[in-house]
């Protein structure tokens, strides 16, 4: 029981971190049709910037500065990069962001090297928040939840309660029409791209010390964020949120519950012996299948429901 509660909380923490990345990506993807491969690279830049800023000025300045810098980088990429490439179609945009991934990764390795950075949770947040059936829940995870909840509220207020939000929502379906009504859509695009990159940077700040700040962190996070976007459905932040939480839970629970598929079915029928091929597959522990599950789910949803959970159009 206690392990379920703790895992639920951990799954929520990880799911919210995923949402912080995926929300920006899904907005950019649905509005501009740009599949931004470099989104997780911005997340990595956020973590490294947070490490540097917190080294000199402390964690709180990092929490504010790093996302702003990442947003500025995003705006620069959109204005001087994507907007120019845009005329040549989506393939050109795709290749452009694909190239950025390598540039960022090599750049980070050249500046900071290949080893993980000593980017740690600040000491004033490094204590157990409460104890649940003997297991400690670190305060930092509570802090991450708080930041994520704040972000969720801010996005919701922006989209639902402001005129800019109205324009963004309208541009999700018919950007040309929004433009014909006299709204500066390229500026809205830049804003959304910068905002999405800012959120990715924020995820880097609070995820970099929760996970590890190293030059492979973008590669580790990138694919799973794409899975979330596809699974949740294009054009839907609600779908993206649900998908993030589901993926967070799956990855957390798969590690904790070390059952095998054979264990699940053993009450129902006799499972083949371990030394046969099928038996071997069925007795692989869940913790080793875990990382595969999100991708299996993505393939399943692409086959069964191509528009994703709550998507408004087909992938």
């Amino acid at each position: 029981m206690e392990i379920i509660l703790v895992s639920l909380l951990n799954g929520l923490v990880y799911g919210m971190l995923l949402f912080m990345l995926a929300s920006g990506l899904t907005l950019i993807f649905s509005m501009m049709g740009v599949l931004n491969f470099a989104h997780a690279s911005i997340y990595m830049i956020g973590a490294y910037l947070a490490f540097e800023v917190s080294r000199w000025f402390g964690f709180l300045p990092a929490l504010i500065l790093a996302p702003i810098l990442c947003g500025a980088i995003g705006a620069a990429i959109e204005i001087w990069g994507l907007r120019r490439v845009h005329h040549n179609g989506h393939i050109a945009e795709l290749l452009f962001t694909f190239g950025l991934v390598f540039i960022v990764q090599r750049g980070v390795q050249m500046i900071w090297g290949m080893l993980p950075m000593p980017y740690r949770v600040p000491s004033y947040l490094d204590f157990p928040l409460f104890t649940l059936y003997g297991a400690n829940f670190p305060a930092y995870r509570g802090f991450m939840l708080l930041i994520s909840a704040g972000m969720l509220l801010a996005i919701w207020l922006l989209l639902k309660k402001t005129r800019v939000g109205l324009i963004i929502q309208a541009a999700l379906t018919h950007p040309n029409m929004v433009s014909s009504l006299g709204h500066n859509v390229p500026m809205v695009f830049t804003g959304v791209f910068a905002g999405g990159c800012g959120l990715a940077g924020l995820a880097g700040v609070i995820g970099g010390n929760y996970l590890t700040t190293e030059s492979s962190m973008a590669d580790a996070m990138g694919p799973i964020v794409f899975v979330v976007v596809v699974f949740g459905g294009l054009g839907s932040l609600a779908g993206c949120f649900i998908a993030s939480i589901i993926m967070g839970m799956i990855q957390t629970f798969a590690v904790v519950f070390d059952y095998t598929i054979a264990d699940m079915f053993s009450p129902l029928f006799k499972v083949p012996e371990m030394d046969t091929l099928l038996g071997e597959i069925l007795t692989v522990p869940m913790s080793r299948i875990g990382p595969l599950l999100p991708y299996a789910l993505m393939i399943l949803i692409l086959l069964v429901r191509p528009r994703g959970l709550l998507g408004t159009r087909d992938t």
Partner: protein
Amino acid sequence: MMLEVRDLHAFYGQSHILHGVDLNVDEGEIVSLLGRNGVGRSTTCKAIMGQVVPQGQVLYRGKNLAGLRSDLVARAGIGYVPEDRQVFPTLTVRQNLELGLKKAGKFGRWTFDDVFRLFPNLAARQNNPAGVLSGGEQQMLTMCRTLMGDPDLVLIDEPTEGLAPLLVEQVGALLAEIASRGVAILLVEQKLTIALKISHRLYVMGHGKIVFEGTPADLAASPEIRQEWLEV
């Protein structure tokens, strides 16, 4: 002259769609652009609005708008109602209308009350998502949404397409209302029903060019033009 289109060319990739279109619309005038499907009527509107890159001149009150971004064309005073309606389906009817305003709370000739008085259906459903409206209601909403931005000239692309006769009459009444408030109209149509009745002047397009220009009476007196370029 309010709008003067001079030698307008447009391309979709390799294919040359507009081969030098010339047309005028004067202040407060209702002008129809007729022709069969695929002759470039919609592309003419899109080229004026900056949604396809044009070559040539689009003079609006003496200023060349050709190649400007759509929002700048709109802010110069030209409104556009596309043929595929493009309501924002997840937003409410009222939010759709709000987006027509170029600035929050800045009303011109048209207010929410005007729209809701003209179309009680829209008033009753103002808090429903626009995606659930019928085709006719969506058409009215699209036209009203553009009017909220208070254009001095509206380009309206096939507003009666696929509508029942009763709704076609409603569209006609709205066009008359628009004209009565001093707004010029460039109406793109395939059928002659409304166009002959309300237009001051007509253009007929064929193969990416204007092939006829005149009054409704001129067109009525030219069966050979109708036969060659309009009748199916």
